[in-house]
């Protein structure tokens, strides 16, 4: 057992590291997106700042900080200022419950590779992400502009609808692992079938659930092909039409932080977390799980960007029909079948 | 250790605020929110008593209260939308006729 002082110090160190990592990851996901979409569309993407444009995120950040922060005269000020903060706070908080590797011992302190390990981790993450809607909805309402309002309305309806399919798609995994703890869920996915197919949930009867999760996750994070709330051809920029400078950057950060959270969750729940082939000296064996985890998250993010570069946008009624008439029944069917199989097996 | 009565007093205060809001507010949506506040106050006393008597059924009952509250909200907000569509007002004092 750690003493309470060490615990507090270790927690603070871990929080700082997690936030720094997350912000760096957000910045470089933006860079990756611009680069990949650029190549998909036969362009170069950012190239000027640093080699391969690698310093572009720094330049962007500087630009956001130095720009004039306009506040339109007709907005409802308290909520107008609070909305981007709400969005970014809830987007960043959920990272604190995501384990990126097994337990490690550094200088005699045995600690998990996450800020805190709770046994209802997944439920808390779901709760935090469901609160994230308020940032978007309040931004839309308080801007007092029709584009923002429509974007906010669309966003809240869409996120509430897709949250149901998202939650239901996770229940199959929960039934198989028998726990809400992300660590237990990952541990249940260790090992292989016949020596070469990993025992990840996505190869272990949860293919349909993974599909539902993928679709709902795209919609939850308001990404193409479900980016109706910020459809630039119809709504200018949706809920953040009236925002500029740092406040706009906060929405931007929240969106990418949500993408990363969703990618981490997909990795933990369906892609086996930090499981992967281990080899080499002990130090390498210690680092490899984290490497596998990051690699899987990267692949998921790459998929996100690939889809953005490829698919057109849905129409709004198609979006709602897709959620309620296709994904929802699919998730329920998957849940029923998984439950039946698990019940028969035990 | 916190005395059980502290939890009960907190739940009583929340419930009273809910009743007060229900009586003095004129906006249908706010009145509806006051009902939710009352339910929340009651839920707290359920959980507190569950801890006191070591009976989990109190927590299960809170779960049921939440489900019923969700159902009630869905229907209630639909009624509010229907009322707004015919009267174009949310003030309960202006919704005093039985006919359209």
């Amino acid at each position, binding site marked *: 057992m750690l003493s309470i002082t060490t615990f507090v110090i270790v927690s603070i160190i871990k929080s700082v590291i997690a936030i720094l990592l997350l912000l760096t990851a957000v910045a470089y996901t933006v860079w990756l997106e611009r680069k990949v979409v650029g190549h998909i569309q036969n362009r170069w993407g950012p190239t000027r700042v640093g080699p391969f444009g690698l310093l572009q995120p720094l330049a962007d950040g500087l630009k956001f900080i130095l720009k004039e922060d306009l506040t339109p005269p007709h907005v409802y000020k308290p*909520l107008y200022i609070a909305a981007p903060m709400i969005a970014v706070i809830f987007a960043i908080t959920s990272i604190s419950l995501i384990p990126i590797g097994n337990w490690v011992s550094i200088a005699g302190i045995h600690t998990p590779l996450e800020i805190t390990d709770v046994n*209802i981790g997944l*439920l808390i993450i*779901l*709760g*935090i992400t*469901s*609160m994230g*809607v*308020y940032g978007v909805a*309040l931004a*839309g309402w308080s801007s007092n502009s029709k584009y923002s309002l429509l974007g906010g*309305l669309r966003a809240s309806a869409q996120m*509430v609808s897709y949250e149901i399919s998202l939650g239901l798609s996770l229940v199959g995994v929960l039934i198989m692992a*028998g726990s809400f703890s992300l660590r237990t869920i990952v541990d249940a996915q260790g090992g292989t079938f016949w020596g070469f197919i990993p025992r990840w949930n996505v190869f272990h009867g949860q293919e349909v659930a993974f599909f539902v999760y993928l679709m709902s996750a795209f919609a939850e994070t308001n990404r193409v092909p479900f980016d109706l709330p910020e459809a630039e051809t119809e709504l200018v920029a949706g809920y953040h039409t009236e925002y500029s400078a740092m406040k706009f950057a906060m929405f931007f950060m929240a969106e990418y932080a949500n993408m990363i959270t969703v990618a981490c969750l997909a990795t933990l729940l369906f892609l086996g977390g930090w499981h992967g082939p281990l080899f080499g000296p002990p130090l390498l064996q210690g680092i490899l799980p984290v490497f596998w985890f990051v690699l899987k998250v990267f692949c998921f993010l790459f998929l996100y960007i690939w889809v953005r570069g490829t698919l057109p946008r849905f129409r709004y*009624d198609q979006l*709602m029909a897709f959620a309620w008439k296709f994904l929802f029944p699919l998730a329920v069917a998957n849940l029923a079948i998984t439950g039946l199989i698990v019940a028969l097996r035990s | 250790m916190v*005395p*059980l*009565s*502290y*939890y009960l007093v*907190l739940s*009583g*205060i929340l419930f009273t605020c*809910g009743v*007060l809001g229900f*009586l*003095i*507010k*004129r*906006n249908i*949506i706010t009145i509806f*929110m006051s009902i939710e*506040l009352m339910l*929340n106050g009651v839920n*707290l006393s359920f959980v*507190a008593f569950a*801890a*006191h008597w070591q009976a*989990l*059924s109190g*927590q*299960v009952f*809170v*779960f049921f209260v939440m*489900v019923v*509250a*969700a*159902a009630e*909200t*869905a*229907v209630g*907000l*639909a009624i*509010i*939308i*229907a009322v707004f569509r015919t009267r174009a007002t*949310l*003030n309960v004092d202006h919704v005093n006729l039985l006919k359209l």
Partner: protein
Amino acid sequence: MLHLALFTIFGAVAVAGAVNLLVQRHPINSALSLIAVMASLSVEYLLLGAEFVAAVQVIVYAGAIMVLFVFVIMLLNAGEEELTRGSRVAILVGIPGVLIGAVLIAWTLVQHSGTGEVAIGALPGRPETIGWLLFHDFLLPFEVTSILVLIAIMGAVVLAGRPVPTSQQPRKEA
């Protein structure tokens, strides 16, 4: 000591939110203060050990029900409430009546609640145990609530859906 401190802080937030709900004139401010009440109540549940109820409180109450409220406020573009004759009567009669009621409740609590104390995390309501209870001891109520929710959904669709003009074909898409 820690328990009492946390209880006091979040209890104060809850009471402040509840009072703010009454004071604010604009429904969206009331809705936000109600969200604050719900979030701090979920911390109180955690203090009592009811972790599942706390999580469901955030997911269902703060994350779904209140989103619906905010959505309707946005949709109907609800403005500040105006004071009418009815509201003045309600304030004049309501506040004293409620105060009397509150004093009665407080008196009853002080008289009957005894000196019981609850420890931090007194009754761990783990999801497994709650789930076991729901699907064994409370199976019938559980199924009945599911039917209730189904009826509520249908009722909401009927009430809030646009009335179909009799001369036209019913709309294909919702």
